[in-house]
Every structure is written in structure tokens, then in C-alpha cells.
């Protein structure tokens, strides 16, 4: 296997992006930041891969429009996944493993606010027996939260503690669209919105984009003294149906984690768009109390569709670059109620 590291990361997150859902205007400055961080130009990038969804954009081939932000003369080596940025990272990591390229810039974008997000996402469900009922994202997460509450695996207090820690940490994240911790008691005093969920248990609808630069071996060492080496990456998927899996567990996360060496992980960026999902993920990954969880504030404070999972990788990587973490874990999710999960580890030493 080739050693591959994350060496660049840029992001934009906002409540409502006043611009076209093709997001070219958001991507151009993100790429500029990546060039500045690496000292490269677009011609140093061996492979490009994007993540986005036409259902979110409300128009066909939105990812083709986004290619304008790259500049394609001379032609570029480019691909796309109808998935989160984290899975675009996976494709780029594979591409580098083939030996065909040494560097990659992956990016993702989405204007969630263009439609009604929790409704739009019903299009990712099983189309015969689920989508015609339009089960919205929040309701499906609520079924999962209640399953754990009823089973005594977590309680409202534990969920509010996750939200409180996230909101407090988000105070130092300039990109968070929601921030400001007060107290767990104050959060619990707020009204229940989608029983059993309060609004702060649910990620805010967020527009945004992000870009990550990957490089192999010496190309990574050229860029940074301490690249964030991708020492492991794995992803799995659980059944789509809500009835055939134990909603209080996430076998795909456990299996992804088991494929990696998680010893020594000191920091984890977990993509949990609902507060109870962080509790599920911590259990499945066996993360102890000494692991710093979501110093960025996590998805509960900002969750741009199609980039929020990859942003977890970027946030973890930059803490490895800074020396704040020696070994960080990053996780991304997709699908209803933690159906698909990707886990990777990033290390300062290789």
C-alpha cells in the first residue's frame, strides 16, 4: 500500500447560500485556499473527484457545471460520486493506490436550502415501500432515538449533554451556523419538536462546500512537516429497511472500525447529525472518555449536505497537522439513521 496523507483542507458553511446550487462561486475560493496551502497549481493535481446530488440542486448534471471551477484546459482526470465528500476521498485514495496518480483534490458542495431538505432526502429511501410515504429524515432519526430511550441505552440528559458540548465547542468554529452553549438544564427546558427530538438534537439545514487535498509519500512531505497520514480507511453499509436492523446499533460502523487499528486514537470527529447518533457511534467504535469528541462542534452545529462527512476528515487532519492530535479518527455517515458509515484514521507519524 502507498502512504497517502491529507495535506489540504478548506471549507465554507452557511445557513443560506445566496447563489446558484452549482456552487461554482463557492468552490473557486476553496480551490484557491488549497493551492495556497500546498504551493501547487491546478496542474499539480493528478485526480479530481466531487460529491454532490442533483436532487439537492434541483437540476440535472449539477456536478458538470461545478467543473468550471477547476478549469479544464488542458483536460483533467475527473470523477464524481453521488455521495458525501468522504466517499470521494475514498475513491481518490484508491486512485492513488493504483499508482496512476500521486495527488488528488476532492470536493463536494450542496445547497440544502434550495428545497425542503428533510423531504428531499426521502428520495434516498427504498422506492416501493418507503418513499411513497415520504418519511422525512427527522422522523426516521426520531424512531431511532426512541428505540434507544425505550431500551434504556441513553436518556434525554445524555442527548442534551452531546448537544451542549457541541454548541460550546462550535463557539470557536467560524463556520458553525449554530453555536453557544448555555447549560444542559436550559436545553432540556426547551420544547420537544419532533417527539422525542428537540431542535438542538437535529443538525441545522446548512449550505456549503469543502475541499480536501490528498498526496502520496514525498509529495505529502513536500507540503507539510506533519502530514495527516491516512493509516486506515474502511466503509460498510447496513440494510435500508428500518424494520430489519436494530436501530440502537450500527453494525456497519462497528465493522468499519474493526477493520482499523484504533489503539491510541486521542481525538474523533464523528458525523452524527442527531445527538443520539453520537452515542451510538461512540459505543460501536469503543471510544473511551479520554477521546476528545468533535472539537469542531460537529454536525449538530453545521451539517452541509454532501460535505459534512468529509469535513470531519478535514477537521481531524488539521488537528494532526497542528500537533494537537497524534492519531485522530474521522467518521462520515449517509442514508437514513446511520445506514452507511465510513471510518478512517489519521496519524502524524508514519
Amino acid at each position, binding site marked *: 500500500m502507498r502512504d497517502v496523507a491529507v495535506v489540504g483542507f478548506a471549507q465554507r458553511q452557511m445557513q443560506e447560500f445566496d447563489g446558484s446550487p452549482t456552487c*461554482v462561486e463557492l468552490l473557486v475560493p476553496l480551490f484557491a485556499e488549497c493551492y495556497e496551502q500546498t504551493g501547487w497549481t491546478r496542474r499539480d493535481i493528478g485526480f479530481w473527484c466531487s460529491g454532490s446530488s442533483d436532487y439537492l440542486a434541483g437540476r440535472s448534471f449539477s456536478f458538470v457545471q461545478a467543473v468550471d*471551477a477547476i478549469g*479544464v484546459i488542458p483536460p483533467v482526470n475527473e470523477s464524481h460520486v453521488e455521495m458525501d465528500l468522504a466517499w470521494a476521498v475514498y475513491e481518490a485514495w484508491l486512485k492513488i493506490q493504483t499508482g496512476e496518480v500521486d495527488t488528488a483534490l476532492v470536493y463536494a458542495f450542496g445547497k440544502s436550502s434550495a*428545497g425542503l431538505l428533510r423531504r428531499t432526502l426521502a428520495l434516498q429511501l427504498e422506492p*416501493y415501500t418507503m418513499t*411513497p410515504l415520504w*418519511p422525512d429524515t427527522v422522523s426516521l432519526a*426520531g424512531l431511532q432515538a*426512541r428505540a434507544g430511550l425505550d431500551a434504556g441505552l441513553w436518556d434525554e440528559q445524555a442527548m442534551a449533554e452531546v448537544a451542549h458540548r457541541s454548541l460550546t465547542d462550535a463557539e470557536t468554529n467560524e463556520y458553525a451556523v449554530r453555536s453557544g452553549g448555555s447549560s444542559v438544564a436550559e436545553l432540556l427546558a426547551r420544547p420537544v419538536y419532533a417527539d422525542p427530538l428537540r431542535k438542538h438534537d437535529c443538525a441545522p439545514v446548512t449550505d456549503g462546500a469543502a475541499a480536501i487535498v490528498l498526496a502520496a509519500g514525498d509529495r505529502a512531505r513536500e507540503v507539510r512537516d506533519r502530514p495527516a497520514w491516512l493509516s486506515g480507511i474502511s466503509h460498510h453499509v447496513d440494510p435500508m429497511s*428500518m424494520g430489519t436492523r436494530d436501530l440502537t446499533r450500527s453494525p456497519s460502523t462497528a465493522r468499519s472500525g474493526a477493520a482499523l487499528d484504533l489503539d491510541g486514537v486521542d481525538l474523533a470527529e464523528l458525523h452524527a447529525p442527531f445527538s443520539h447518533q453520537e452515542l451510538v457511534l461512540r459505543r460501536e467504535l469503543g471510544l473511551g472518555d479520554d477521546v476528545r469528541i468533535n472539537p469542531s462542534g460537529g454536525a449538530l452545529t453545521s451539517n452541509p449536505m454532501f460535505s459534512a462527512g468529509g469535513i470531519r476528515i478535514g477537521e481531524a487532519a488539521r488537528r494532526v497537522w497542528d500537533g494537537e492530535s497524534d492519531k485522530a479518527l474521522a467518521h462520515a455517515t449517509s442514508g437514513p439513521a446511520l445506514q452507511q458509515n465510513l471510518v478512517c484514521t489519521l496519524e502524524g507519524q508514519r
Partner: protein
Amino acid sequence: MSRTLSAPVTVAFDYTRSTGPVLGRFLTGLRDGVVVGGRTSDGEVVVPPPEYDPVTHAATTDFVEVSPTGTVASWSWVAEPVAAQPLDRPFAFALVLLDGATRPFLHALDVASPGDVATGMRVQVRWRAQRTGAITDIECFEPVTDQAAPPPGPRSTLDPVTGVVTPVALDYTYAASPEESAFYRGLAEGRVLGQRCPTCAKVYVPPRSACPADGTPTTDEVELSQTGTVTTFCIVNVPFLGQRITPPYVSAYVLLDGADIAFLHLILDVPADQVRMGMRVEAVWKPREEWGTTIENISHFRPTGEPDAAYDTYSQHL
């Protein structure tokens, strides 16, 4: 004034799908007023039946009729229903463990408030009067009443369900980019605005947020001539739904003088068979009182009568 122009857009499509034998069996059951589950190799009775066994991966063939009555296994409250959900007033989504099944089934539950639902409560199917063989043949669940749900009538003699049609309509507020917004606002003033790439100096109309060749933001606004050259064209002979002009007519790429990208418009006021590459044309605007922020302000292009442009002047723009 907001930075960008936006407009409501609805994207709608009737998804037409074949069901295959397993989901077909389930949906045929719903049409007949019975709920059919599938027995898997590990002894579970799953509703709806899975198409393939989760352990052996063999196609499901062992079908079991389960009760239309069951117990709430989990629920969540829908305080603000969204369009096309089973109920248009607040309701619960529930996972219901039907009597005779071992795995719960997702559907809506009609109760007035979250205080009226609890895990463990007994509920029953409320059947739709007119059933077609779709998941929506179950209107929703409702709390069990003294009267049990009416027993199913005689099984239909219709052919088994083999397909479903699921209408999907999504509403968006669709925004133009700032550059596109400037273009449309220009049109509302009778002007055609493009953008020049500061790197390669190419002029794009309609403008784009970045030069597709260089990836450079196109910051320089350029007002373009309303006269140009036909670079290539086609004669439309085929009628289609929504056609506004009687065929034959010409749809052409017009390269405005000063632009580096041609754009598509109509060539009228000339017989279709006389339109040619290199023909010089000019914009014909609708009456000013009909203008909006739209390309339709330009009704069409018509010949100027000038001599044709030399091929070399547009050969790089084909």
C-alpha cells in the same frame, strides 16, 4: 435587492417501476386487504418481505399472512407534515410489530397528539377504500377500536401486481448565480452582458462564475453587440409537446460580435432553408412592456442583410 435572482421550480416525475415477484406478492396482498410477510432462513417473519434472504441470499419464496393488528415498537412525532405524507395534519410515524411478524413495519399512525401514542400501544391498519396495489393502500395505522378492522373481502381475481407508479414532485427555490443574475437584469434593460476571463481574455455570454478553461473567476463585465454570426444551426421539423412555433424553423448558435461563446436562439424572418453558417444576424426584441429578467425578451434573431462573415472569423467557435 437580493444579490441573486431566484424563482420557484417544481421538478416532477412519475417513477414507474416493476415490482418483481416478492414485492409484487406483498403489494398484491395489500390490494386484497391482507398484509404479507416473508419468512427468512433465520426464522424471522419480515414485513415487507425482503426480496432476498439476508443470510442465504436466496430469493424469498416463503410468504406468511400476518395480522393487520399489532403493537407500536417505536414512534416519532411529525409536528409539521411535509407534502405527500400519509396525513396532512400532525401525526406519528411508527414502527409497528404486526401480530404474526417478528420485525416491525414502518407506516404512519393517525393520532391527535403525542400524548395519544406510546410504545407498546395496540394499533390496527386503516385500509384505503380504493386499493391499487401500493404501500399507500394502507392509509395509516389507528389505535385499535372495539370494532376490529373489517375482514378482507374475497381475494381479487385480478392479475398479480407487477408494477407501481410513484409520483414525485419536489419544490425548489432556484437561484441564478450572481453573474447569471447580472445577465438577466441586463436583459431587463435591453442590454446583453457577458463576462471576460482575466486570464485568457475570452468573453462568455451568458456569463459563468468561473472560466471553464482556466478556473479563474470572471470578474470583468462586458456589454456585447446585439449583432452576430450564425456559427451552426439546425432546422426543426419535428413537432413536440409545448412547441410554440410551427415547423420548419431554425434553432442556431449565434456568436455575438465580441463574444467567444455562441449561444442558442431562434432565427426567424427568413425561410428556414435560406439560413446558413456565417449569416449575419441581429437581435429582435419584444415590445419593452413585455420585458422581464429573461432571455425571452429577445424574441429571435433575423438577418441583417450584410455579406456573410468569412469562415475564419468563427472557425474557432464551432
